[in-house]
């Protein structure tokens, strides 16, 4: 991860989070793990354990890390998303009160959907013959529900 991004992320978190607490949380809870792409880092938080375990059982364990799917495949988008998640994560984690089981947000879903398509462009271009003209796309995980996380 390049330092410019690191700065960007830390800044965003400091700005967004509730003052010092945010910073503290971020440090203490290893929120810094956002800055790496090591899956076990995500799992630092026990609340991420389920997804981590699911990922370990999934077909992508060997081919994609958390951030390969959960952050856009463009430099800027990657940094911004990490910052947003970093803030949300810290906040939620500090004050609790997030829904369990954790459910992905629409924003994050759009990210994962795009990353599927970016890695599998060759494979799936054919099913959108209209290309960009094609109206609404069909969701990948409507069928491949457990590629990222083995469910059931």
């Amino acid at each position, binding site marked *: 991860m390049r330092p410019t991004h690191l700065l960007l992320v830390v800044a965003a978190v400091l700005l967004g989070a509730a003052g010092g607490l945010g910073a503290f949380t971020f440090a203490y809870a290893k929120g810094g793990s956002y800055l790496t792409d090591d899956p076990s880092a995500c799992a630092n938080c026990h609340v991420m354990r389920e997804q981590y375990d699911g990922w370990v059982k999934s077909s992508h364990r060997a081919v994609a890390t958390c951030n390969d799917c959960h952050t*856009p*495949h*463009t430099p800027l*988008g990657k940094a911004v998303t990490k910052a947003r998640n970093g803030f949300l994560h810290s906040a939620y984690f500090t004050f609790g009160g997030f829904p369990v089981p954790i459910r992905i947000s629409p924003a994050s879903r*759009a990210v994962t*959907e*795009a990353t599927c*398509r*970016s890695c599998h*462009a*060759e*494979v*799936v*271009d*054919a*099913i*959108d*013959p*209209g*290309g*960009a*003209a*094609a*109206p*609404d*796309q*069909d969701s990948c995980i*409507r*069928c*491949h*529900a*457990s590629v990222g996380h083995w469910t*059931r």
Partner: protein
Amino acid sequence: TNIFERRQEARNPFYRVVALADTTEDPAVWGQNFPHQYDDYLKTTDQVRTRYGGSEGVPVTPTAADPRSVVAQSRLEQDPRLRDLWAGYAFAADFREERGHAYMLIDQQLTGRQRVARQPGGCLNCHASIYRPFLRAGEGDLFAGFERLNRMPYDSAAAWVSHPIACVDCHDATTLALRITRPAFIEGIRALKASQGIPDYDVRTMATRQEMRSFVCGQCHVEYYFKGAEKRLTFPWARGLTADSMLAYYDGVGHRDWTHQRTGAAALKVQHPEFELWSKGVHARSGVTCADCHMPYKRVGALKVSDHHVQSPMLNINRACQTCHRASEAELKARVEEIQDRTYQLRNVALDALMALLADIEAAVRTDSTAPGVAQARGWQRRAQFYADFVEAENSMGFHAPGEAGRILGLSIDATRKGQVALRGILTRPPSVGAGPR
């Protein structure tokens, strides 16, 4: 978004060797651009039997009247009760297991039902590539062409078509996007949405891509009748898609398909309500479409394409089911057959009950056809028969919505019971059939 960015530079995997226009009717031409889809499409000539579906290729000696050398098995021979159920109606003359799309036109032209009754032009709506013929007959106006062919007798209308369903019936020639080409569906779904409080629904502009993956099939795999003197092909959806609401619709407009030969009841014949039954199942609730199971994606080299060999998913469990269900092929097959065996048992109980009711009414009519019990028993027969036929005519043997199929068969058995009770003079009045045309 960055899907869009990527889309811009995305190379199209297909070589466009020919330019396709809305006027390109011949699938072989489309096939030059889309060989995989075309090759699979041609495979709908295959005939393989599953426990309750697929079809069996029965060899027959071609005659001048019927040049076919292979047909599908006769359902009437498999279950003679159906002859009694439909006594006096063309279906009692010939009714076979359906087979692949490639046969749709010839099977319609040569069915024994054509010999015993004069069929209307509207039949062709679902048995031919009729999008272009509609436009030709309507001089560019789809609905005008639809109405014109509806009014013709079958043979005159048949002269306008030459091919079973083709690419152009489901696809836009330039974007390849799915599209609706059948006026009867446009009108039927609009009436349905209106009943749900959604006015002026236009399926051509308002349906999502996912919905289209079922709607294209819903243009044909549905219950229908020919309305009024102009024999307009109509789907009875104005009150909803359940068996109950379709029966209420027919009662409301006072429609009967025929008068039952043995009992004199104002009978109804249900035909392939796959779309309607599917819509009441948990798959539909979960957004699972017809194409998901009957045209699952398949991998060809680097690409994946929709399997245009439209067939029973039981012949393709791996692709049709296993992407969503982790269970083994054997287990998934067992789940389907358990559901189907259960439905089949109840279907048989319902048909046996109906046979008893027919005999009872027949006897009562001989003694005194004017007895009040008789009129009521006939009313109950109409209902019991509609419900039983709904599941019998639906082609998944209950799989598309197991719980709903059981409910409908239960109502059929109860209606039969009430009919038999009515003949004892214990009068339980069936909902009255409106005073429409008889």
